[in-house]
């Protein structure tokens, strides 16, 4: 028998999409049965009380979580999101309902052994509910009590060899697309760079030392499967220099209808036979492709590497061989002064594992030094850029100015010059002036 009546939530059990309500109910039942005979460390009916409080929110149209909550583990300044219910007498099972962020492997590959270990730990010491995964990337363990936090952390580090993720004004958990593990477009090893930088900057991740939060994300190519350009303060998008590799025989196979365009992504639609002129040549944003006499030609110097032709004919076209990454800076959600996507800071840098990615680390640390000094309280780096100018960022990163950094040059002439850059400087005598120009 369910502890609370949930007539509204029950309506979310029907329909084809996996029902979180059915799943939470199944967990509630499993805990009630307790086939393994666990001595649950938080209330057995925690999932039932979660459904209860959620049902109440569905009636009231308002959240029933108190504001904020500051909890954690010794040694760290983040990693746990504290949360308390505002109706603890009615729903004692979720009086404490803290979230723990657990660092996930890059690309989110798992063995069942690891996941089962996490489940065993969480079954005993938490609600049995999770998010797989948080939008930043962490494994999210949803709901436990304060006394369990250190216990969970101890088991996590000692038995599972795994750390917490980030929260607060610090480096958050970095995330990568699956990159070279299963994608032919990957221009660098996104997962390795993600792992390397996560380890390099553990201190910055666990102990808030920044004006505000800061995120890294790693996409292997401009398709952006981890959305680095929209969802990270520093976003890395793989790219290449030089020619797109063309296999003319495979091009002919596409034209001849032997291979489906875009790997078959439109198979259920009624789009007619593949038309290379219409579907590739005519919509290349640079108009730098031509198809004549059965040969596909690309004027690579004009290509902006948008990926469209490669996406459409993956068996015939491949990214060039000289590969690296672009770096974009400043993406953020609207609060405070409006949403931003990352702006191109570094058009190309090698991703060099041999020197432990030193060139990339120099850029990151240059940006941090500047922003930690200049950034105001709770000001994202994107906002600092807006306030102090893109030029200041470029200088901080120690990279050259480049026309690729702008979509277009400014159209107002409110140009700042430094006194040193102007012949004669700014120290002038009005009397000299008056000798030439009468009052």
């Amino acid at each position, binding site marked *: 028998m369910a502890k609370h009546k949930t007539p509204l939530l029950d309506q979310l059990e029907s329909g084809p999409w996996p029902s979180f309500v059915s799943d939470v109910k199944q967990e509630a039942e499993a805990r009630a049965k307790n086939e393994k005979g666990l001595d649950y460390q938080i209330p057995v009916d925690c999932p039932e009380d979660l459904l209860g409080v959620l049902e109440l929110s569905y009636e009231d149209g308002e959240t029933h979580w108190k504001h904020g909550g500051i909890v954690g583990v010794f040694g760290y300044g983040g990693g746990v999101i504290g949360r308390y219910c505002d109706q603890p007498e009615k729903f004692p099972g979720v009086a404490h309902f803290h979230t723990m962020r657990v660092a996930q492997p890059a690309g989110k590959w798992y063995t069942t052994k690891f996941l089962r270990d996490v489940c065993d730990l969480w079954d005993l010491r938490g609600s049995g509910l999770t998010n797989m995964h948080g939008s930043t990337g962490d494994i999210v363990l949803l709901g436990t009590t304060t006394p369990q936090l250190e216990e969970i952390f101890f088991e996590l580090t*000692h038995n599972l060899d795994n750390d917490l993720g980030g929260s607060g004004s610090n480096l958050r958990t970095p995330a990568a697309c699956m990159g070279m593990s299963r994608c032919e477009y990957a221009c660098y090893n996104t997962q390795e760079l993600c792992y390397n930088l996560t380890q390099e900057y553990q201190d910055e991740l666990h102990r808030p030392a920044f004006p505000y939060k800061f995120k890294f994300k790693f996409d292997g190519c401009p398709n952006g499967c981890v959305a680095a350009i929209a969802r990270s303060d520093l976003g890395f998008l793989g790219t290449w220099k030089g020619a797109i590799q063309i296999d003319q025989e495979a091009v002919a196979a596409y034209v001849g209808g032997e291979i489906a365009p875009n790997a078959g992504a439109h198979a259920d639609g009624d789009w007619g036979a593949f038309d290379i002129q219409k579907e590739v040549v005519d919509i290349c944003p640079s108009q730098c492709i031509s198809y004549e006499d059965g040969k596909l030609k690309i004027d690579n110097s004009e290509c902006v590497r948008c990926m469209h032709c490669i996406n459409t004919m993956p068996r015939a076209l491949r990214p060039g061989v000289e590969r690296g990454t672009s770096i974009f800076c400043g993406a953020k959600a609207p609060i405070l002064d409006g949403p931003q996507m990352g702006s191109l800071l570094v058009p190309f840098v090698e991703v060099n594992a041999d020197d432990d990615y030193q060139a990339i680390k120099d850029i990151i640390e240059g940006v941090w030094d500047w922003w930690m000094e200049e950034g105001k309280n709770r000001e994202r780096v994107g906002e600092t850029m807006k306030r102090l100018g893109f030029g200041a960022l470029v200088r901080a990163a120690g990279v050259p100015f480049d026309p690729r950094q702008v979509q277009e040059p400014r159209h107002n002439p409110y140009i700042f010059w430094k006194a040193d850059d102007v012949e004669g400087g700014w120290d002038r005598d009005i009397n000299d002036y008056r000798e030439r120009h009468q009052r």
Partner: protein
Amino acid sequence: MAFISSGYNPEKPMEGRITDIGPQHFDKFLPPVIKNNFGKWLYHEILEPGLLVHVAESGDKVYTIRCGAARLMSVTLIREVCDIADKYCGGHLRFTTRNNIEFMVETEEDAKALKKHLNDQKFDGGSYKFPVGGTGAGVTNIVHTQGWVHCHTPATDASGTVKATMDEVFEEFTHMRLPAPVRISMACCLNMCGAVHCSDISILGIHRKPPMIDHEYLDNLCEIPLAVAACPTGAIRPSKVEIDGKSFKTVAVKEERCMFCGNCYTMCPSMPLSDKEGDGIALMVGGKISNRISKPAFSKVVVPFIPNEPPRWPTMTKTIRKILDAYAKGANKYERLGDWATRIGWERFFEVCELPFTEHLIDDFRDPAYYTWRQTSQFKW
């Protein structure tokens, strides 16, 4: 319930403490076929909805079956996922950046068998546990947030709105018949934890009433300058009030300057603003992340308000359906929703989607608002 120690000693908290070890290296988790062909993939094909094959230089193949998931999931369900991966995939699996689950096998027969097995699994309530799909030009999983399940600043629920929407567009999850992929995202307040500002269609929780002020507690619970600095429109200033002859330091909100973002509440627990009738949903469309053909773009607000209608949000799901249908009918192949709307013009977008245009949709936030008005005589009747 007896306390079970993990070995942690609260008397000596720093003793034996392990810190700064980070996540595990992904290499430990890769299936053999992935490890062997790492960085050596030649091409891929989508064999049918939810089923991909990647072919390596060595000739090795890996078949991937992608299935939907609710993101909010129990350990019981994760263990079921593990059972499946143990039975079919040598104990390996992965999760995607949109919170779908991917199982990898090495032959097409195994892949088809696994697809069938996944589609056969159902919850007691009748919904699929692991519906296969989410590939190609369709609708995949909805990136979403905490909602009433865990957060204190939402204006709507995440898990509920997402379930209602995915039920409505389920056919598009299991098919690939749209002009291009349509990414739907959801955030329960305009902190936009996730991808709402850059998706084809976005569901966003919004408030419509200014915060209430708990004057008697505010100074004890909040740093007043932080609450003042939290406001994008400068609506908050420090002030004093008298209650029963006692004077309290607090803040005042200029209500006509407040646009209900809730950021002051994020900073100050004494300024709550959620409200049953006031709160609801705005819909945004036309954002994208990839650089394919056109540049990445922000999503734009096209429906300023839809009331919260738990548990199934029918007005919201119907409106999403209408937009999706108009797009499917009007767009060219490869054209993302935003590219289509820009090509036909936003005036035409409102017409074909049968959406009313109101004053709320015209930008009035600071300097950049100007650039969103129309500085040309080019428009359609």
